C-alpha cells in the first residue's frame, strides 16, 4: 500500500481564527513563548496495492488541487510516506 500525505494550510496572509484561539488558550496551560499557531488539515490517502508508485503522487496532486485545498485561501504540500503503521497511530 502506498500512502500519500497532503498537508493543507491557510496561505500566510489569511486570518486563521482557529490558530488565534488556540494561541490565546496557551497561557491557561502554563505554556509561554509560542508566537504563532496555524491550524491546517492533514489528509492521508492510501492507495491500493496495485497502483503504480509514479502515478500515486500525480493522482494525489490532482485530488489535492481539485478537492482538498481551496486555492483561493489555501496552499498544500504533498509527500509520500511509509504506511506500515495503521492510519492515525502515534
Amino acid at each position, binding site marked *: 500500500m502506498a500512502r500519500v500525505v497532503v498537508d493543507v494550510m491557510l496561505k500566510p496572509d*489569511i486570518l486563521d481564527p482557529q490558530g488565534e484561539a488556540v494561541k490565546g488558550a496557551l497561557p491557561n496551560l502554563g505554556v509561554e513563548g509560542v508566537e504563532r499557531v496555524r491550524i491546517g488539515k492533514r489528509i492521508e490517502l492510501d492507495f491500493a496495492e496495485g497502483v503504480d508508485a509514479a502515478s500515486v503522487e500525480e493522482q494525489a496532486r490532482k485530488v489535492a488541487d481539485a478537492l482538498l485545498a481551496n486555492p483561493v485561501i489555501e496552499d498544500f504540500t504533498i509527500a509520500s510516506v511509509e504506511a506500515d503503521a495503521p492510519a492515525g497511530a502515534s
Partner: protein
Amino acid sequence: MTSDHIEGPVVDTVGRAEATPDEKQPYVDLGLNDEEYNKIRDILGRRPTTAELSMYSIMWSEHCSYKSSRVHLRQFGEKNPKTDRLLAGIGANAGVIQITEDTAVTFKVESHNHPSYIEPMQGAATGVGGIIRDILAMGARPVAVMDSLRFGDADHPDTARVLPGVVSGISHYGNCVGLPNIGGETIFDPCYQGNPLVNALSVGVMPVERLQSHEAAGIGNVVVLLGAKTGRDGIGGVSVLASATFDADDDTDARPTVQVGDPFTEKLLIECCLELYDAGLVTGIQDLGGAGLTCALSETAAAGGGGMHVDLERVPLRAAAMEPHEILASESQERMLLIVDPAHLDAVLSRARRWGLLATALGEVTDSGRLIIDYHGHTVVDCPPVSLADDGPVYERPIKEPNDRALLAADRAETLSRPSTPEQLRATVLKLASSPNLASKDWVTEQYDNSVLGNTVLSYPQDSGMIRLNEDTGTGIAISLDGNGRFARLDPYQGAQLALAEAYRNVAVTGAVPQAVTNCLNFGSPEDPNVMWQFQQAVTGLADGCAELGIPVTGGNVSFYNQTGVEAIHPTPVVGVLGVIDNVEHRIPLGLGNPGDTIAVIGY
C-alpha cells in the same frame, strides 16, 4: 522634508509628494479617471501621496461614494412620509426608527455578491458579519439576521460550489455569533450564474437614549481601534500601488487576499460594545466595513466637523511589513473605531481586555480641519476629511430604455397554452412542484439556528420572521425580505413596487403594522445606459410605492456591476419591510386554522 527616510521600503510622504510633483501614479488602475485625479490634485494643491491616492480611490469608488446612484436615491428622502419616529435615516450606518416611547429598532440589508462568488463560504460569512456591525454601530443589540439569496441554475455544476458554500458561510457566522435566522429567500435563475446575489439583513433593538453617534467630536478625544488585528485582507484594487510603486516582479505580496470571518471575535465585539454604550464610555463609534480604516477615519472625522490626527504605526498588524496604504485599505473583519473621552480611556481599555479584545489608541480628534496620518513620525496623509467622505464625484449617468422592452411586453402570459386535460393539469402541477424556486427550502433553513436568544415567535416557513422585543409587554417586530428579478426585468418600476408590496403583505398578514423599509438594489453596470434606466425606474417605483403606503425608506445599499461580461443580471431590487406588533401573543401564523373555518380570498 525631501530627505524623509523610514526603515524598509520607501514610504511616500507628503514631503516627498511635494518634491516629486510629476511622479507617475497608477490612478487609472485604481478606478479613477483623469478628471477625478485632477480634482484630487486641486483639493490637495499637490499630487496625492500613495496613501492618499489609495484613500481617495476607495472613498470615491462606486461602492463608497454612490456616485452613480446618488442623484436617484435622493427621491427616497424627498418622497418619504414625514415622521418624527425616524431617529436616524438614510446616510447613517443603518436607519433607526422608534417603535415605543423608549424603544427603537434599526435594520438594514446589504449585499456581499462579488466576494461570495470568489469564495462562497467566507464571502457570505463576512457579509453577515458586516451587516451585524452596522447595526451594532447604531447602539443596538443585534437580535436577528435574514438572508436573500439568488443563484444560477439549480442543476449547473458551479451552483453546486456556490450554494452550499454560501449557505454554510451564513450558517457558520450567524449561528456562531448567536443570532437567529428568521427568514429570507432562495431563488434560482440562470441570469445569476456568474454573479450570485447574497444579501444579508440584520435587525437590532435599543433603548432610545442609547442611539450612538458616528462623529469624531470633542477636541482631544481619543481615537481607538477595537477588535481584530489588521492584515492584508481584501486589499483588492489597492494592490496595484505596491506593484506600480515598488518592486514590480514581487507580486506575491501584492496579491489581494480573501477576508476570513471570525464570528467568535464578532460576538465578543458585540458584548463589549454594548457594555461600553451602557456605561456611557464612548462618544462616537463607527464599524469598519468594506473600506476599512480609510472609511472609518474619514467618515468619523468628516461627521465631527473638525480634524483628526492618527499615528498609523500603532495599528496592531497581523502581517509583517504592511505599507501605510495597505493598513489604511485593509478590510480585516471584526473591528470598530471608537471616539473616547481621555478620561474614559482606561475604562474602555480594561473592558476590552475583559472581553479578550485588543483596543489601541491610534490618535486624537483635533481642530485642524484636516485628517493627518503619520507613519513613524512622517506624514503620509494630510487632507480635508470632508473631501474624502462627502465631496466625491456625483454622476448623472446616461439613461436609455432597453430596446427589447417592447418585445418583452408583447410576449404576454395570455398567449401561453393552458392545460386543458387532467393529464396536462397533472403535468403542470408536477412541473411547478418540482421547480427549485417553489420546492422546500429545508435544506437551507435547517442549517440556521432560528431559536437562539429565545425570542423567535415566527421564522421558517412563515411569511415573515417575528421577534419578541419585550417579554413583559409582548411588543415585537416582524420582517420580510422579498424581491422578484424576473418581474423587475419586465418592468423595473412595477417590479420594485411588487417586491415592496409582497414584503408589506407578508408583514401585515402576521398581525404586525408595517413601519419602515430597507432595500438592497442589485443591478448591472451603471455605465450601461439600459441598466441605469432600470435603476432609475426601480428607485422611482420604490419611492412612489413607499409614499403611497405611507412608510419611509430608512436605508439600504446599492450593488452595481453585477454582470458577467456584458450580460447584466435581472434588475433585482430586494426590499425589506419591518412592522410592529403590540403583542406577539396575537400573531397570526400560516395555516388553515380549524376544521369548519371559512376560507376566503381577498384582493384581486
